[in-house]
């Protein structure tokens, strides 16, 4: 397709990188990334992926911007309070980089809609804030054979892992199923350091770009945890679980289900 003069300038710092180059940048411009949840994790991921020139970015979120979001969801501005999050995010991405096509899905990701959306993309970023959604994204990506980056944050702790279905440990390999109701507090109950979302969401964007370009070592079979107070990163090696209900040798889950127990109670607002 060839880069325009403006694109050469815009992406010059990528092109200079030995591992990216003009061909790598063209690959990014042809890539599609879906971000599930335009909140704390999705915000930095969407900003950086937009700036990087990911050709198509999909955003799923049914929520509207709330004043309490602004402490960490940096893609939304004060003036956006009350605006659909996907719309608000779309505006910012467009403002940063007109090369990017933004597709918005103003709905919650559910068992009955997520597979057909995921199918359109090359990589998925899980920026959701509740266990049910996290398992749903994991399962959908498994069924659609799409690589994705899982992440979660609470208080001062974050974690992430990259899943390449069929090749590496999936979210269910590790956690099996959602925890009992009430056993884990939500962000709104326990609090979260705003910048933590920026750190972890940016790492997710990094994984997306590496995956799309086929460079470096992905965070597969490795859970990376981060504690902001101790400023400590830890890599935990994890093997695939042969008994995994989803990707194990005798899978029990053969279709998508909507898990219960929404953690952050968003739908009640």
């Amino acid at each position, binding site marked *: 397709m060839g880069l325009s003069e403006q694109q050469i300038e815009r992406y010059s710092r990528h*092109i*200079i990188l*030995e591992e990216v180059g003009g061909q790598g940048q063209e690959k990014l411009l042809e890539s599609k990334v879906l971000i599930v949840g335009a909140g704390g994790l999705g915000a930095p991921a969407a900003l950086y992926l937009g700036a990087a020139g990911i050709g198509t970015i999909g955003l799923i979120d049914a929520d509207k911007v709330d004043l309490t979001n602004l402490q960490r969801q940096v893609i939304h501005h004060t003036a956006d309070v009350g605006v659909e999050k996907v719309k608000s995010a779309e505006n910012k991405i467009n403002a940063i980089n007109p090369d990017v096509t933004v597709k918005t899905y103003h709905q919650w990701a559910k068992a009955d809609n997520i597979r057909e959306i995921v199918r359109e993309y090359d990589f998925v970023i899980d920026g959701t804030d509740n266990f049910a959604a996290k398992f749903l994204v994991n399962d959908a990506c498994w069924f659609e054979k799409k690589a994705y980056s899982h992440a979660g944050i609470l208080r001062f702790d974050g974690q992430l892992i990259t899943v390449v279905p069929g090749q590496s440990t999936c979210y269910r390999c590790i956690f099996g199923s959602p925890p009992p109701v009430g056993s884990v507090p939500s962000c709104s109950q326990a609090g979260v350091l705003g910048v933590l979302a920026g750190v972890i969401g940016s790492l997710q964007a990094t994984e997306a770009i590496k995956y799309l370009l086929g460079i470096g070592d992905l965070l597969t079979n490795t859970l990376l945890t981060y504690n902001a107070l101790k400023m400590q990163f830890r890599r935990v090696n994890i093997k695939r679980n042969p008994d995994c209900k989803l990707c194990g040798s005798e899978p029990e889950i053969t279709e998508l289900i909507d898990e219960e127990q929404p953690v952050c109670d968003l739908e009640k607002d």
Partner: protein
Amino acid sequence: MSELKEPILRIPETVKDDTFAYRDGVKKYLDGSTSEVAFRAYRVPMGIYEQRTVGKFMVRIRIGAGLAASGQLRRVAELSKKYGNGILHVTTRQDIQIHEVKIEDTPDVLESLLEVGLSPRGGGGNTVRNVTACPGTGVCMNEKFNISPYSIATAEYLLQDRSSFNLPRKYKIVFSGCAEDCAYASVADLGFFAHNENGENGFSVYAAGGLGSSPAVAVKIEDFVPAGEVLEVAEAIKRLFDKHGDRSNKHKARLRYVLKRIGIEEFVKLYQQERAVIKKEGLKGEIPEFRDVTAAYQKSGESGNGDVKVTVNVLPEKTEGLFGVRLNLDLGDISADSLAKAADIADEFGTGLIRTTQLQNLLITSVRGSDIEKIKSALSGIGIDVSAVDEPKVVACAGASTCKLGLCLSRGLAEAISEKLGEAQIRDKGREVVRISGCPNSCGHHFIADIGFEGKAKRIDGKLMPFYDVLVGAKTYEGQGKLAERIGSIPAKRIPDFVAEVFAKDVKAEQLGELVKSYDISCGEITDDYYYDYGASEAFSLAGRGPGECGAGVMDVMRVDIDEARRAIKTASRAADSGKKNQSLYNAVVASARALLVIYGLEPKKDREIFAAFTENLIEPGWVKASGQKVLEQAVDWRMGDTDSIEELAPEISELAERVEELFLSLDASLKFKAEPFAQKKESAGAESKSHLADLRGVGCPMNFVKAKLALEKIEVGEVLEVLVDDGEPVRNVPASFVAQGQEVLEIKNAGEHFSVRVLRKK
């Protein structure tokens, strides 16, 4: 330093730091960790140039306002003897050059110079060059006031900022003490003329002048600025230049091209904007004081001028009883021993201050009338005859003997003229100056000469002859500046007679044109000697002056053939007679085929050889369509009488001539065609194909690497990409970046104004 009564130019700390760092730079170059190319880009702004002889270097020392203390000159002389060839050269911009220094000795030279308060920093490259002043500053009878404090402070202010060494091109600043303009402020990038308005000292300001190719007289940008504001003016113009100068094209980079591009109104507006910003924010860095350096080197006069005879070499100063004594140097050269003795003489009879002048002489000022005879006899001891009634001064550039750019041997001509003027006993009646440049680059400043000569080559009877354009009518005077005009051209060998006649008969300006005609090629016999330049044992030739050198003069030679082809085609189209038609068409083919061969250093004489060379160099590489071969062959057939007519080939011949002209017009400074070649049959499966080229001249860092890399991605692994990049940062960075990314750089070649980098795609 102890010898200095008062430092003249206070070398800024940044320049001192850079000078001390230079030793390390040379070490890195010598041990191979810095490339030749990278080192060159670093060396030139330090004021160190390589000479025509490889491995010999010239150190150009800036003499601020042309003022040097005797101790400084003794040091310069000592260094020249110890490290150089023992001969110093005074330049037209008041610098002093040490020649033939080995590169490994240059750090010693620089550090030793620094000890006496001298530095070559900014002597070359795209820098703030020596800030000059009229040689009589502080003592001249005509000056409005002493301008040296302003000239020196301007240098001190600008030199402390490293950005002054990385401008789009050179920036020359000149101060003249009055409208007479002995310093040539009328043709400077920035020129100041001293004025006194209602008791206040100040300057009128002119900008965007310059000599060299497409010279221009500076235009007025300020009627009067108080003297204390000169730093702001110089800084404002520097900023304007820095922002708007065209860094992409070295040939169009000087300030005068900015003016040409945007017009005077916009230029003045931009200047005023910069001034306003400076007014508001203040100048950055240390503000030097305006020190009257000459005051420290002053002495009292004596009453009456006695019986001192005033000549061009002995001129009265404003203090009664004091005189300036001119040391007339042939072409600016003086031996180290003589310079050291001249310094001693300045101590004894002057004030210990010696000035360098724009006419490449030295001047010892403030000599008492009663000492004139003594100083004359002292100077005669070093071979300088002050009593001699001198012939008009002849100024010449270095010329083709040492300069890679030169066409003609200008110094040889200068000597021949001086000899002739001496023989004819022609006297210098004032400021009469003959100026010679060996090529259109104008280093001899022929555009401001009373009589100027610009070297070129002309084809007479099929052979090249050294020739000069004659220029007259220049004026350098505030507000009336005028460049010399071309009035004709004459063979080099007729110039001494011509000059002698002009001066002897006091030929009026309007008669000069006629006089030139009487010396041009149509009059008198042309002897074989005319084909030999002064002092040359071989017939004049441009052969060997290949690509990589500035082609300004070579261009003229090509133009001659191209015009001839065009004329012949026109003649053929009009000729009624078939024989004449055919002959003209044939002539057009020959001229077209010959025109561009100079680029390849070829000067075949016979038509057959011309055609063969054309085929090899222009048709085969695809610069000219393959069908051109048919034209050549049929032209030969006609010539040999094998065919009766080539009239039906007229359209093809026109096409050939047009293509040649098109190629000619697309030549860049390194004499490479920018025009697209025609597709060629692939040469036998050579590993490298020449067709992969990325011309990134004018593209800065890092975009040049970005684009070069994109071009490399487009070729196959194992193929070679040629990248053209600019000198300086680009050629330092682009190849290094490729290497860092695992590609192989096969060659970095200096192609004159730019560099060619050949990169093998490894992965």
